[in-house]
């Protein structure tokens, strides 16, 4: 589950890459606006960049949207925390014990590879049409991704580093703190990263399909009532949140694993 290669392009290269990205976005917006203006597509179904922009601006004064945003962010965080803590604990225990790993990893990997949305109806049955459904479903999804990445991270601990700790008289706790934990940091970060992205997507999914409030439910309301501009504007809001989270994340990770920079 390697997410990206640790390598930093020189800054002129990076600027150029960013520029190319912008060109594509701008071009897409122009094609979209042109297609609507020339009557190739129906603005009722696809809206137009101008309308979406106006809808976005309107959100800042829209109490319904703002409270939905708060609900969604809060639900995501709660699901993320519960799922991550559970995944961390179980993942560390499985990672450190061969026997437990052999026993429990196969079912976990099996569940990981099945689409989690399949289980959403079961959660609705148990928790009803409430926010708890979203939280439980989100935490459930997050758990698997965190757990598997933590196990993978602990596997990265090298035998000769453990031997070193033993030779120099490390206690169990010291071995964990100075060897196992730092060695599994990359896996730890991958785990948190996957946990966060899946918390976001599973909560939105739950809100989209179960009318429990939040941005997901709002998108579904706007789409069914053909308020396409607002539905699209909400999608933009969500994307911006996701991108901001990702940026924050990579900065933190880079700082905390700076020793890897020169390897």
């Amino acid at each position, binding site marked *: 589950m390697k997410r990206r290669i640790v390598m930093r392009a020189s800054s002129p290269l990076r600027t150029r890459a960013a520029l190319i990205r912008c060109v594509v976005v701008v071009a897409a917006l122009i094609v979209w606006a042109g297609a609507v203006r020339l009557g190739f597509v129906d603005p009722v179904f696809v809206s137009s960049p101008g309308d979406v922009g106006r809808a976005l601006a309107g959100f800042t004064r829209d109490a319904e949207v703002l409270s939905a945003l708060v609900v969604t962010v809060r639900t995501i965080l709660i699901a993320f925390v519960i799922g991550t803590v559970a995944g961390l604990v179980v993942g560390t225990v499985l990672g450190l014990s061969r026997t437990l790993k052999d026993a429990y990893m196969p079912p976990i990997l099996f569940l990981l590879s099945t689409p989690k949305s399949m289980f959403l109806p079961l959660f609705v049955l148990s928790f009803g049409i409430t926010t708890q459904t979203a939280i439980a479903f989100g935490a459930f999804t997050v758990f698997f991704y965190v757990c598997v990445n933590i196990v993978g991270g602990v596997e990265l601990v090298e035998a000769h*580093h453990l*031997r070193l700790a*033993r030779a*120099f*008289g490390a206690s169990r706790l010291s071995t964990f703190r100075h060897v196992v934990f730092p060695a599994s940091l990359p896996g730890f970060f991958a785990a948190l990263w996957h946990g966060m992205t899946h918390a976001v997507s599973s909560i939105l999914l739950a809100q989209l399909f179960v009318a429990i409030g939040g941005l997901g439910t709002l998108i579904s309301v706007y789409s069914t009532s053909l308020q396409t501009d607002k539905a699209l504007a909400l999608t933009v809001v969500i994307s911006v949140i996701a991108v901001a989270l990702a940026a924050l994340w990579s900065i933190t990770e880079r700082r905390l694993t700076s020793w890897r920079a020169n*390897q």
Partner: protein
Amino acid sequence: MNGKAQSTAYKAEPSAQNSEQGGAALTIKGVGVDYSTAEGTFTAVERVDLDIAAGEFVSIIGPSGCGKSTLLHSIGGLIPPTRGEVEFRGEVIGEPHPDRAAFVFQDYSLLPWKTTLDNVALGLQFKGVSKGERRARARDLLRTVRLEAFANSYPAELSGGMQQRAAVVRALAMDPDILLLDEPFGALDEHSRRQLGVEMAELLTTTGKILILITHSLDEAVFWGDRVVVMGASPGHVKEVMEISAPRPRAVDFMLTDEFVDARRHLLELSRHDLDGEPEPAE
């Protein structure tokens, strides 16, 4: 560990195998090590008997895979011997105990996420020495191997030889009774090896510790050793133990003496058959 006071007493007599203290401090009694592998048990070391006096320097040579590292790990308590036992001052060595025996590993094993300074201070940290004190001690030790400028660098930023020097002082930081050196200069070319050897000479030989050095260099083995243990392979065993009687510490001139040249020639003949694949140091 109460051995500290005793080890100071030995410091006055680096060549303690001749001392009135007489008997061995470190006794390797019929030590054998089997590994269990997928194909069954594999005997890495068949049987080794060796008595080592306090302050003695023992070199171990032998072909690759003959069980040198395995034996060394057994001596330090890292691998429990399948047969026999290792005793230090009458006490059986069961678990690793860095105050008693500290390792310099063949692959140096510096932790990549710690700075050179913190790597050197690692054993002290495990022992619970305060941050200020262990860093001060580590800094002093780094100075002795001219690495003080790299105290805050990460191992990835050091050359192989620099990492080895750091690993040597990390072991010295424990002030152990026994230093177990597994090819500490292995990654170096002949010139830096000699250079480093001369530097280390003072550090290593004036301390009165037992030193056990695994090396592939016959020069190194003879130059340093009070005795040279020649091991043979499949399964690992001791072929011969050779005394080098010249007093230590030895000056570089020792390499020109008859004793050195004769000993080296003898070892070369002994190892000619099984050092296949191991390049001899250039003459």
